[in-house]
């Protein structure tokens, strides 16, 4: 299991388009992906779950990945956050 803290760097936060991108990336891996924000814990492969986090600019999320390809998965997800979800 690997964990990682990430910060939302795109101004608009995680709205529909970034959420779709996140889920698309997550579903490419077989590992179980959990995203935590404050007290909420959701499945990173569910688009409605990701949107319902209401992750705004500068808020912090915790990614928890567990499975055979956990290293590649977390790297790919962190890259998305770093790239501001290809926005801006």
């Amino acid at each position, binding site marked *: 299991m690997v964990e990682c803290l990430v910060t939302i760097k795109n101004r608009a*936060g995680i*709205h*529909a*388009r970034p959420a*779709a991108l996140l*889920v*698309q990336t997550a579903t490419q891996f077989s590992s179980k992906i959990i995203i935590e924000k404050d007290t909420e814990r959701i499945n990173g492969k569910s688009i409605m779950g990701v949107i319902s986090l*209401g992750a*705004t600019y500068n808020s912090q999320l915790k990614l928890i990945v567990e499975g055979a390809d956990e290293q590649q998965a977390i790297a790919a997800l962190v890259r998305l956050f770093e790239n501001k979800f290809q926005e801006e």
Partner: protein
Amino acid sequence: MDKFTVLDLLQLDLKEHDALNLKCMAGRTGLVREITLPEIDRPGLALSGFFENFAFQRIQVFGRGENAYLKKLENEGQTDTIGRILSHEIPCCIFTFNINPTQAFFRIAEKAKCPILQTDLPSSEFSARVMRVLSNIFAPNQTIHGVFVEVFGVGILIKGDSGVGKSEIALELIERGHRLVADDAINIRCVSGNYLLGKGASVVISHHMEIRGLGIINITHLFGVGAIRDEKKLELVVQLEEWDSKKVYDRIGSEESIDILGIKVPFVIIPVKPGRNIPIIIETAAMNERLKRMGYDSAKEFSSNVMNWLETKSARAYFLEEKHTFK
């Protein structure tokens, strides 16, 4: 397209406001003449002997005025202009108002092998109807492989490789109370350049379906006349595909479209996998399409609601942080 002859025009199955009420009065041997243009001509100038730019390739419509002039010519013994008109390769002459042309006209027409038709409609109404009918026939068209159904009033063309289950899905939709327009070969026409009409490529086979294991079934007989329709506007194209776990499918609803005869039609790809209830997904797609046409786009509305929510949260967080400055 096959040659469209005068005989085809007479044999068209037209109803109500499209009916032309044509019957052939003379020149039956000329019924094989081809109609090449979706236009009509009133032969007034030609009758008076002026043949420059005479549009002889068009259907010639004789109304009350033309007929009165014909009578006058005949009384004066000047039937040679009629001969000159009919010596051109005219597709056919049509007399409106149930007018009977004179015997002399009949004789010349028989000799020239030019078909003479008659209708009970007034000239203006006939012109409007024949133009509409002909422009429909001469509209650009294309035959597409698929199943064409009407779901909640939306014309949906279901495409996909053979064996993906198009017919079975259509059958389930019919079972659920929707209608079959045609199976297998669908003829799509672009009407007046702004919308598409689809119907079966052949009247004989369009309301039949081939179901693997059953063979050919007749939908009209099995499900009743309420389960079929002849023609429908094409409003949505659904492409069925075998589920490919590597392929990325649409998750939020984008505005994809496909080009058919120069018209953009909304297009969705639905992956098929055992256990997925495709008919219900197609029903939902149809309703969503109707909703969009009413001006409510679920995907866009959802997206903008999420954006607003995030913005409000963001602003609130900023305000709470800066609270101390209000003292």
